[in-house]
């Protein structure tokens, strides 16, 4: 799953259409991960190679082309590693066949296919191999066994391409998914036993029967799952586990060392790792972010909304971008009253490509139909001012008295940017956003001396106006404010 996002960013960069926020995330991955750089190099190399062919031969003339480049010798270790992997693959395939043979013999259904995409190979039903390519929408080449809703009795599913994925649901409601070039064998004879030979597998596992946890074997580790949500990635010599919820026990095959991995932690099991779980929370998309949404007309709800990196307070922060494709906004569910006084506060930090003149722009607006998709009328734009620091957070604030024309309308708020340098690439980070309203009596309401002049009973003084938080703390925060 993660690599799928990485590949999307890499090809967006290669195509020259990457956004500032996505580019920042891509560069962070390239900085942090050797694997990410390897994938990047493969795709850039592929791009160059295709362009060489397209450039020199042109479209339509390809089939007459013969090879012409000069071979560059590969290192001996390359042969050795690849041969070793192939041998290892053969051994594992032979071993895992034993896992599901009993299910195959009985033909008992243990799971249902809930989603398929890309090129996949399924081996089940006594060794019958089914290959398919396409999606559920164009699945004419698929056998029934590889279509949504098909019942499976255990076997091996193999993703044949980077964009391949396969999702299944066991009869107890536990779900699992492989993506990319992954090979998974699964069986369930009262206890779910899986073997992930390579690639990525993520699962949401319902509580399992006592004494019969789900077991996931990889070449380098054994995972014991009682009931939780997690993702695991297997490479030739390592297993990386990321737990989203609950707890998973990991036993390293190399020396039998066992650790419990808790939610929001990741551990790498390999011969030379320290097996120490590391706290990590990945970025989230707009689709995964409550309350806030990306309302840009060309906005992609799957682009980055919040992340942990470059944090203000140890929790996640909102990623702002000058790109026109990103405009975070929310329907505050607040109906404006005449006499309202709005105040905002937040912390923000300029990041990559943010020019000295660029600013954060908080826009308060209503629409012609009280829906966030309606035609907007912005009645206040509260600017942050230029960034005064580099690499550290600074406070932003502003306030406005609402115009009487906006009374009785629904309040919407957008966290926008204002360009100051003519380059729409700047990225900034924003945290602890707060919007509050104080309602002051409308002009024309009875005053205290009115009552005294009329010798009426002295009434209780009206309560002093107090501020009400519309957004802030735990209220409508989109999971990026400090709890």
């Amino acid at each position, binding site marked *: 799953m993660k690599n799928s996002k990485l*590949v*999307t960013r890499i*090809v967006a960069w*290669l*195509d*020259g*259409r*990457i956004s*500032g926020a*996505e*580019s*920042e995330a891509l*560069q962070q991955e*390239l*900085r942090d991960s050797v694997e990410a*750089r390897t994938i*990047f*190099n*493969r*795709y*850039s*190399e*592929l*791009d*160059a*190679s*295709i*362009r*060489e*062919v*397209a*450039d020199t*031969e*042109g*479209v*339509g003339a*390809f089939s007459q*082309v013969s*090879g*012409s*480049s*000069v*071979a*560059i*010798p*590969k*290192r001996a270790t*390359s*042969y050795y590693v*690849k*041969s070793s992997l*192939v041998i290892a693959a053969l051994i594992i395939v032979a071993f895992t066949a034993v896992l599901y043979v009993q299910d195959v013999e009985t033909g008992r259904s243990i799971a249902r296919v809930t989603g398929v995409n890309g090129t996949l190979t399924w081996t089940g039903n006594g060794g019958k191999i089914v290959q398919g390519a396409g999606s559920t929408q164009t699945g004419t080449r698929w056998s029934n066994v590889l279509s949504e809703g098909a019942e499976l009795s255990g076997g091996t599913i193999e993703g*044949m391409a*980077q*964009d391949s994925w396969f999702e299944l649901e066991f009869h107890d409601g536990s779900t699992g998914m492989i993506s990319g070039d992954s090979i998974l064998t699964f069986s369930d004879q009262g206890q779910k036993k899986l073997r992930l030979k390579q690639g990525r597998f993520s699962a949401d596992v319902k509580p399992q029967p006592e004494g019969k946890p789900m077991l996931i074997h990889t070449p380098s580790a054994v995972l014991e799952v009682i009931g939780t949500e997690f993702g695991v990635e297997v490479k030739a010599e390592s297993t990386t586990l990321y737990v989203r919820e609950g707890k998973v026990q990991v036993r390293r095959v190399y020396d039998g060392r066992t650790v419990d991995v808790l939610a929001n932690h990741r551990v790498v099991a390999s011969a030379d790792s320290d097996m120490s779980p590391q706290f990590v929370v990945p970025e989230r998309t707009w689709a995964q972010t409550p309350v806030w949404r990306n309302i840009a007309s060309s906005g*992609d709800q799957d682009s980055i909304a919040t992340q942990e990196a470059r944090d203000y307070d140890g929790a996640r922060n909102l990623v702002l971008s000058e790109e026109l494709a990103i405009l975070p906004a929310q329907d505050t569910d607040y109906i404006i009253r005449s006499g309202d006084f709005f105040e905002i506060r937040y912390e923000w930090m300029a990041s*990559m*490509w943010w020019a000295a003149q660029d600013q954060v722009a908080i826009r308060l607006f209503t629409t012609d139909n009280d829906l966030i998709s309606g035609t907007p009328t912005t009645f206040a734009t509260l600017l942050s001012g230029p960034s005064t620091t580099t690499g550290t957070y600074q406070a932003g604030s502003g306030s406005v008295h609402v115009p009487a024309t906006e009374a009785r309308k629904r309040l919407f708020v957008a966290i926008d940017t204002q360009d100051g340098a003519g*380059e729409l*690439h700047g990225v900034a980070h924003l945290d602890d956003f707060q919007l509050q309203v104080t309602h002051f009596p409308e002009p024309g309401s009875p005053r205290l001396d009115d009552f005294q002049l009329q010798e009426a009973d002295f009434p209780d003084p009206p309560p002093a106006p107090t501020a009400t938080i519309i957004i802030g703390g735990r209220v409508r925060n989109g999971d990026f404010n400090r709890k």
Partner: protein
Amino acid sequence: MNDDDRYEAFTRLLMEHAPRVRSFLRGLLPSWSEVEEVAQEASLVAWRKFDDFEEGTSFGGWLLTIARFEALKYRRRVARSPLVFVDDVWDLLAEEASGEGVQQIRRRHLEGCLEKMDISKRELLLKVHSPGVVMREVALQAGKSEQAFYKIIQRLRAVLLDCVSKTIAAEGEA
């Protein structure tokens, strides 16, 4: 070595190593036109300095070093953009991509795999990688939304890379 021999030797070496240089530059520069521009600059610099090249040493490594410096010079001239990597990422990529034995995809690998693709998919893939072609315009011509079109191309690339990787792995076994 007279001038003709010298020129011939240089040309032969340059033709041999140019694809490697362009592949190296592709991972650093955001567009193919920039790759070609910097590759040409590097070739010119290499020709001017060819007398300094020690016969018997690696011409490819020498040319890559020149290309890396030329790319760096080019990078300093271009505007700030999400397409231009920041210093540390640039250095990491440049360092790793210039290592020995990095390039494995050879033209015959690619051609073999392209031949296995449906002709319409193959031509589409080559078309969007042709000089001067804007992917957004091809998407429009094809009647697809940009996002849908990008996904199609991404899938074709993934299939091709998968095929190429398997071909290379199979050669490694042989």
